[in-house]
């Protein structure tokens, strides 16, 4: 028997390191004995889950799971969703854990959001806890106001222990001239407030709304020559309701 055959139990119980697991899987392809034993373990244990006592599931678990699925099912970037559509903010689950609420397109933003959530909460040494305090309040797609079908952005409004954070991630925005920048605004009724400048290489920004309170109804992006002006002076590129 080859040495690696002894790792079958640990492979089945997933206690091997990633490297060991990979090596064992390689071994498995050439070792009929391990293949057979693994299959046997699977068959011999298949009745065991039924030993579990039947317990009541949380009454709102199904709605939470299906809410997540609805978010995943909505392709944020498809042509028919270019029209800005505010998400159902009224129906937010009480304790929506952030890790269940990541829309697929925005999943790439996950790392930066967590980092931000963490930084906003520096006294908390445990990222897991910081993450669970992050709540997705609303999310929307910003559409082009100049008939450029390719330019779009996803905006997410998050809350971390009551402190709001706006994340905007754009794609296919037209190139800027020298000295120009993309300014993000949150708008309450008629009143715009500057909410960060898009990073010129990544096309994204995360901005704390700590010093701003309001009932934002629109998020917009304009081209400006100076950051954080009291009101937009340049041309409007993208906008969407939230």
């Amino acid at each position: 028997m080859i040495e690696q055959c002894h790792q079958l139990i640990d492979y089945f119980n997933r206690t091997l390191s990633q490297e060991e697991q990979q090596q064992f899987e390689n071994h498995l392809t050439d070792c009929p004995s391990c293949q057979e034993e693994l299959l046997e373990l699977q068959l011999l244990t298949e009745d065991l889950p039924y030993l579990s006592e039947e317990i009541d599931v949380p009454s709102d678990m199904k709605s939470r799971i299906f809410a997540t699925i609805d978010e995943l099912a909505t392709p944020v970037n498809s042509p028919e969703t270019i029209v800005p559509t505010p998400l159902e903010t009224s129906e937010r689950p009480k304790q929506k854990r952030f890790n269940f609420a990541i829309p697929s397109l925005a999943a790439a933003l996950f790392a930066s959001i967590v980092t931000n959530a963490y930084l906003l909460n520096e006294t908390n040494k445990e990222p897991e806890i910081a993450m669970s305090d992050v709540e997705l309040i609303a999310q929307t797609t910003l559409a082009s106001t100049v008939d450029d079908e390719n330019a779009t952005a996803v905006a997410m409004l998050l809350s971390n222990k009551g402190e709001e954070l706006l994340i905007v991630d754009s794609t296919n925005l037209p190139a800027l001239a020298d000295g120009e920048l993309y300014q993000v605004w949150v708008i309450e009724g008629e009143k715009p407030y500057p909410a960060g400048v898009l990073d010129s290489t990544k096309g994204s920004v995360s901005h704390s709304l700590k010093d701003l309170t309001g009932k934002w109804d629109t998020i917009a992006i304009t081209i400006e020559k100076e950051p954080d002006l009291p009101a937009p002076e340049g041309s409007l590129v993208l906008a969407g309701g939230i």
Partner: protein
Amino acid sequence: MTVLDDTILYEKTAMQDRAAFETLYDRYEKLVYSFAFRLTNDRTIAEEVTQDVFLKLWNGAASYTDEKGKFSSWLLTMTRNKAIDEIRRLKRHDHEEMIEKDSLIEQPGSTEAQVEWNEKRSDVHTAIRELKAEQQEIIELFYFKGLSQQKIADHCKLPLGTVKGRIRLALKHLKGLIGQEGGVSND
């Protein structure tokens, strides 16, 4: 019959048929959640595991084919994998701790899947009680606690090289007893 049904529902789910997915969800929600709880002894983790399993099912992160055996077994293997990963990640479980048995109120099942589950539980339960205490323990440590071979050896005071053999022996013995109880392993 159920096997065929599940496979068809799974295939529809893979095509983003929400009604099919919901049928599968309703059929297995309680079993997956209860099993995850049996493994983790923690309702919060059990819910996270359940979420993860059904999301993977819906978004195609895990794919099932008939070759992988019964759909239900595949789903429950996913559940166990996620649960033991979570236990290890969170390190909340002391492996010495014993699961508090009979601490939960058992409720009579109503749906077809739950009736089937109740019958199986009763058969497996009867069979497992016929095993010697050492065999019951090694199944608990191996399957429900997901311990490493070394930890099982330490716990049961067995030479490392004999652990795999002991596990197989206990499981085979159990399977034989279950077979006698009325063939739960057959469909």
